[in-house]
């Protein structure tokens, strides 16, 4: 019988190392994943608004606020419902403006959502087919961006949970507000 050699065990060793790495990744908060937009200026966009007929929601709106939080949501997105409560809380913070982008949604359902759960947003843009949000690098809903003086400083993928609000979002806002 031929002798077993170390080199033939290399694939299985590499595989195990990789699997451990994947396990670490899995446990890591995916919401902290970086965005290409971080430290970059707010992207240029322009969309119509949900509540007002003749207005538009664009980059200039966000530039008016010193600190802005942009939340991408949809009524069909179930995590967005759980997150909404937290957005309502955030909307009471002074010096912080919340903006919403309603993503791939139906007008009635979106209005209904806001009517039932409350409106934390100063303005809500409408992106019916998800194209205008592409400049934000949106992959899914919900996603949240924090913008400070026109620069995107943080991106949150997925719903903001209570513990994330306390451990991540509030410290960031505390630094700049």
């Amino acid at each position, binding site marked *: 019988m031929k002798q077993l050699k170390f080199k*033939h065990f290399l694939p*299985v060793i590499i595989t195990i190392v990789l*699997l451990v*790495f994947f396990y670490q990744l*899995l446990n890591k908060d995916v919401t902290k994943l970086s965005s290409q937009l971080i430290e970059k200026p707010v992207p240029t966009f322009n969309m119509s608004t949900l509540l007002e007929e003749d207005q538009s929601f664009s980059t200039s709106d966000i530039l008016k606020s010193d600190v802005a939080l942009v939340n991408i949501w949809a009524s*069909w997105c179930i995590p967005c419902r759980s997150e909404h409560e937290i957005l309502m809380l955030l909307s009471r913070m002074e010096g912080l403006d919340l903006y919403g982008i309603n993503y791939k949604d139906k007008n009635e359902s979106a209005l209904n959502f806001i009517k039932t759960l409350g409106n934390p947003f100063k303005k809500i843009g409408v992106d019916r087919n998800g194209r205008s949000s592409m400049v934000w690098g949106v992959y*899914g809903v919900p996603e949240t961006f924090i913008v400070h003086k026109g620069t995107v400083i943080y991106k949150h993928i997925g719903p903001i949970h209570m513990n994330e609000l306390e451990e991540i979002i509030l410290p960031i806002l505390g630094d700049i507000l």
Partner: protein
Amino acid sequence: MNLGNFGNILLLVCLSASLIQSLYLLPKKIDINYKIFSRIPFFFSLFAFILLIYIFVDSNFNYQLVVNNSHSEKPLIYKIAGAWGNHEGSLLLWILVLTIFNFIFSYSKIKNLDFKKNVISFQSFIIFGFTLFLFFTSNPFIQSESIVNEGLGLNPVLQDLLLAIHPPILYIGYVGYSLVLSFAVGGMLSNKVDKEWAGWLHPWVLTAWIFLTLGIGLGSFWAYYELGWGGYWFWDPVENASLMPWLAGTALFHCVIILEKKNILQSWTILLSILTFSLSLIGTFLVRSGILNSVHTFASDPTRGLFILIFLAIILVISFTLYAFKGPLLDNKSEINLVSKESSILANNWLLLSTLFVVFLGTLYPLGTDLFLQKSISVGPNYYILSLLPITVLLLFIMIIGPNAKWQNDKITEIIFSISKLFILSLAIIFGFSIYFIELQLTQITLLTLSLTLILVSIKNGLRIKNSYTIIKPSLGKSLAHIGFGLLILSVVGNATFAQEKIFQAKVNDILILDNHKFKFKSVEQTKGKNYNSIKAIFYLMDNKTILETFKPEIRVYSNPPTVTSETSIVRKFLADIYVVMNIPENSDFVNVRIHIKPLMSFIWFSIILMTLGGVSAIVFRVRLKR
């Protein structure tokens, strides 16, 4: 009985039958009638899949999956496609494809029954794992908790025919490699890895390769015309996840050829077989667990990620451990001469694997720095282009030389002599082009010349002209695929070199000039569509006084819900696509227009078709030769 329960029963039957079949792998070899137990999962997953399509077509909003992904007003075709346009449904489709491969393989006429049963049983084990995953973490037949009358999935962007057929084709490719893995495991268990084994494996590797090639091509085509950014490949992690098994699979395919002809490289072929399907699984894991965020992200759920990871670990650790013990025993003593067909195929293997490594690193490295250093880096196209450039040059070179080398031993001088004319011809053409049209850089000249040489050499190899009859050789498939690859590189380089893009602020009657194209901004039209108002800008592509083409980029303002969309106007021409996109004008007489000229786009798509056709004709010839 309600349909959901019925669906669950179907899945349970599929689950138990595949579990029973996989018991053959135990040391005791619990042997049952493999014909029955390998075929049951196919029928039951097929029924389950049909049932799922039925509840989608029926717009049965008792099911959460239908509520989330369908809408009663959707056109029928998109209701059907909606069944697999989501995580749960696509997983069921994945299982169906796994069982189809096992089903067809169970009819193969392989005499070595122990080997055949081992393959079928390992495949059944894979089916078992995926069905378990589907049943417990991603069950498509879950009832919705609340009563709803309408679904949420009326998303116009996703209503796209290509988007409906692209995933199934890609899955057949991905999943096809599962049988290749089962072949590797079965071969090792039965100590049957030789010429004959390679011969049995050959058509399966080829089939998976064809579908994967086509699937990747379709995905790229969709991104090009739907996303409207003028690009066709973004090195997006999900694209990379499909490219990696393709690269490994291409290397594997070439190795199988050597093994079949020369009965060497057994353990290397086994290693590649395991690697290829591992990469399919790793890609699935990274995408489905939500670790890689991308355009393709399905709703992510940590338990799903953990489940796939555990399953991935079981499959990979079993296969690679088996390889560590058995692999080295399989090899025949052999020596490979430096100049021979086998050495060039091996060199091609290493180049493909280097490419794979570059892509793998580019995909995982950012995740690693994020995890260990809390620093985020982004890996862009530049990284891939710069790292892959030298590899591509070498790969082209080997692809020109290799097919002209004989098995075992050949003289390098003779090979070089045989291709020299075509090489000089190509060089002359590219140089001529560079002198008369646009000055090219050294890298461009190198790549273009080599890819053109590859095309010409492959054409020459594929056809033999004798007494004015053109004889098609059995190696036509190889030639087609190689021509396709040469054309792909040629057109990708050409596209990158000559693409033009410019943004204009234009008023009516302005003349816009891009390169040697003259566009006239004719007018703005306002029309009313079904549920939107549209603003169309009319542009003419002019040749002095005559109008060559008309472009009508459009902006649509939907009233309910209020949305603005921009519709691209593309004119496809033989040598280049012209793309005109209009941006939203803001209270002014000016219109913001972006014009792209994308050369050789149709050649890129054609090259992928050629490669696929190459694979198909290789199978056809194989079947005919056997008869």
